[in-house]
């Protein structure tokens, strides 16, 4: 294309430094916010005021920040649950089911120890450890089904994980509603409340699961960047036939990534229902958190499976979901505007990934000499 003597063309990139990828993401967010501000202007609001409300509530207000961080932890676990199979070229759509089972298993530990009606005579660290292990194991178990079927008979993992979501969803209903074993004695269609000793300890107002997020980020970074196992997962993800030739066991990789992914999704379930202050029960609206876990998939995709980049995206979307809801209430915005804004940013982030692969070159057109 030629414009006013300048030649504009697209060129494929051969490599992309990390800082440039980060820069494009920031530009994408700004671009998305800019686009959405036209919608605010259309509906007679000041975008500046709204964005100020959203971001100051989400990140500066001490109450809002706590909500944001809790969402962030949840999204980070869900993202990791997606990323691990994703790096092996497999799609985990089963975070909801895995996190439901994780939550059920944590509550199951408390239930079996008699925590539904009385107190538990057990040191808190031991109890918490048992709950976390149960959540990890339950998530891994249901996730592992998809990995096993994929590895053994090449059954599509997307279908399996999605179907398992329905089973898990109804299993939670069975457990917490209508006389189910975990039913709240008050009968409000939610689970019993955790006794004091089973609630996750807070560190500076934030649940300790925040530390787990950072530890897991480092662990995943090392796994994919340094470890032989991560190398095998990546090789399998890029080219299954080449991985097989190199002696990598496709069955084992499929099972393993879904065990790990499912375990981390289970941890997300544990976090939201057993570690977030003010919750400490499987709420009637648990399905909402199942849906929310799909944002983990989006965070994982936007960050192209990079665990560190994922953290920033998860923080952004955690904050937006909290700040957006607050702004909607406070400034009387239309229903669902918070989700529309998040959607816009996602589209913008994905669209800007075009620049990961291409660059635009503008050159002065040379005058032709005959």
């Amino acid at each position, binding site marked *: 294309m030629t414009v006013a003597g300048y030649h504009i063309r697209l060129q494929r990139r051969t490599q992309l430094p990390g800082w440039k990828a980060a820069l494009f993401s920031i530009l994408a967010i700004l671009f998305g916010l800019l686009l959405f501000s036209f919608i605010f202007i259309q509906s007679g609001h000041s975008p500046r005021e709204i964005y100020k409300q959203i971001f100051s509530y989400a990140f500066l207000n001490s109450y809002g920040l706590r909500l944001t961080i809790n969402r962030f932890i949840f999204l980070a676990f869900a993202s990791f649950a997606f990323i691990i199979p994703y790096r092996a070229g497999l799609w985990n759509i089963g975070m909801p089911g895995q996190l439901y089972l994780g939550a059920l298993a944590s509550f199951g530990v408390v239930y079996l120890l008699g925590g539904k009606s009385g107190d538990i005579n057990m040191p808190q660290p031991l109890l918490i450890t048992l709950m976390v292990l149960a959540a990890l194991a339950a998530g891994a178990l249901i996730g592992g089904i998809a990995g096993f079927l994929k590895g053994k008979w090449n059954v599509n993992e997307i279908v399996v994980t999605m179907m398992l979501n329905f089973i898990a969803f109804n299993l939670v209903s069975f457990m917490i509603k209508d006389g189910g074993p975990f039913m709240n004695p008050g009968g409000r269609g939610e689970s019993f409340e955790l006794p004091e000793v089973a609630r996750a300890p807070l560190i500076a107002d934030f649940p300790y699961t925040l530390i787990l997020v950072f530890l897991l980020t480092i662990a995943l970074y090392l796994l994919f960047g340094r470890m032989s196992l991560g*190398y095998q997962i990546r090789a399998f993800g890029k080219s299954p036939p080449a991985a097989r*030739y190199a*002696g990598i*066991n496709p069955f084992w990789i499929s099972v393993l990534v879904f065990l790990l992914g499912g375990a981390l999704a289970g941890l997300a379930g544990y976090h939201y229902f057993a570690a977030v202050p003010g919750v400490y029960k499987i709420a009637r609206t648990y399905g909402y958190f199942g849906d929310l876990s799909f944002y983990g998939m989006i965070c994982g995709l936007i960050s192209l499976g990079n665990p560190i980049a994922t953290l920033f995206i998860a923080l952004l979307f955690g904050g937006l979901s909290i700040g957006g809801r607050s702004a909607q209430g406070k400034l009387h915005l239309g229903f669902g505007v918070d989700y529309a804004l998040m959607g816009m940013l996602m589209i913008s982030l994905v669209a800007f990934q075009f620049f990961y692969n291409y660059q635009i070159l503008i050159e002065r057109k040379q005058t032709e000499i005959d």
Partner: protein
Amino acid sequence: MFKSKEKAQEGIELHGDIWKHIQPGEVILDARGITKRYPGGVLANDHIDFKIRAGEIHAILGENGAGKTTLMSILFGLLQPDEGEIYVRGLKVRFRSPEDAIKMGIGMVHQHRKLVPAHTVLENILLGHPQSRGVINVKEAEEEIVALAERYGFKVDPRARVWQLTEGEKQVVEIVKALYRGAKILILDEPTSALTPVETERLLESIETMTEEALGVVPFITHKLPMVLAISDQVTILRRGRVVDRMETAQATEQILAQKMVGRPVIFDLQKPEVTPGEPVIQVENLSARNNKGVIALKNASFTVREGEILGIAGVAGNGQHELAETLFGLRPAESGRILFNGQDITNRSILDRWKLGMGYTPAERTEVGSIGDFTLVENVAMNYYFDPRYNHAGFLDYGGLRQLTERIIDEFDVATPGPDVKIQTLSGGNLQKIILGRVLSRQPKLVIANLPAQGLDVGATEFVQRKLLEARSNKAAVILISEDLDEILSLSDWIAPMYEGEIVDILPAAEAKKDVIGAMIAGIQREN
């Protein structure tokens, strides 16, 4: 700019008349100053000029990366040149797509066949034909096609399914398809690379007939130099995107052509040192295996290869060699029989165990199986080392050490690359193969299975790869060489096992083997005793 476009348009409308009254010897295609620059500043074609005359076979010769593929794509409208012009019978043309090129009488026979395997020959030939947009009179078309094929001495069964055909037959289908569309200039990409000697002979005869009818034939060739000398009238040699020389074939010798192509003298007679064979490394007993369609494709293969020996498996593609290689390496389950490696039964051992025990395999599918395009050179080298205690410390990979190893392989195997950290998909075919072979040989395996190690490589890289296999043999490795190139088999092997329809026909000592005898065996012609 717009003016030239209109003119090109005009030319394409005129195509009905353009091919009338061709005189033999007349210039029918004239390429002037063809230039193509790729992202990153690579100049794939640098002002290339050449003329094709009617009734002439004009070979374009060049190594991998010399710009042949780019030039071919430009002539066929797959790519547009940055500079330069193409004239067909004096008319300036601009091909925006292959459709334009076909309209102007240019036909292309791809090396990697572009046919639908599940369809019949007739369906494939009609597919995409301008007439086939409306109603086709299938019967009439079938008769026309058979007549057309016969005119040039081809045998085609229009009702056969393409997947049942041999490579040679598929090529015939592609040629007939191009001719049926009215091609006057036929571009052949590596025409004889997958053919048996018998099929090659037949193809050459057909090409002769074509030139008698004043068609222009343009074979593009990388490594079959004797073929160039045998068939062509003119030869244009490319190196690094430029025309380095053009000559009448009568004045050329193999040595001259190779030197011009590579830019340095090439040794054709490989030094094959005397090696005393040692202990048996691999013993195969009655090995059978199925192909991907579930049919037994390898039948009762038995052989032994000892230290310092090369066993050459000769045969035309699809006669069980591929299944043999994959079964030996554990990529395909054995149906029956067993494999002993250093006396140990490894028939059902995993691929990883085979690597650890000292087997090495260089697959024929270098981009799909032998390497991971999106990985760097270092990560690709890690494919054979991620399990090796020298580079795997308690589950952590020593990427620094792997990087040094990669640099050593790059040095020793003379790999042209900007460095070890670029993605391997940026490498040319020859360099990719050097990395794969270098990676496998760096493990100093006791057995190397080399599946089509030099296929598609240029003269320089072929010589290099062959020399490295002989080096492995000198280092007491057992080598199983699978090749469709009889000359390669004859010059490298100690023993030759021709395969036909899944069976090893015979195992002959190379010293006594004759090319025509082996050629007959792989074509399924029984020896008379």
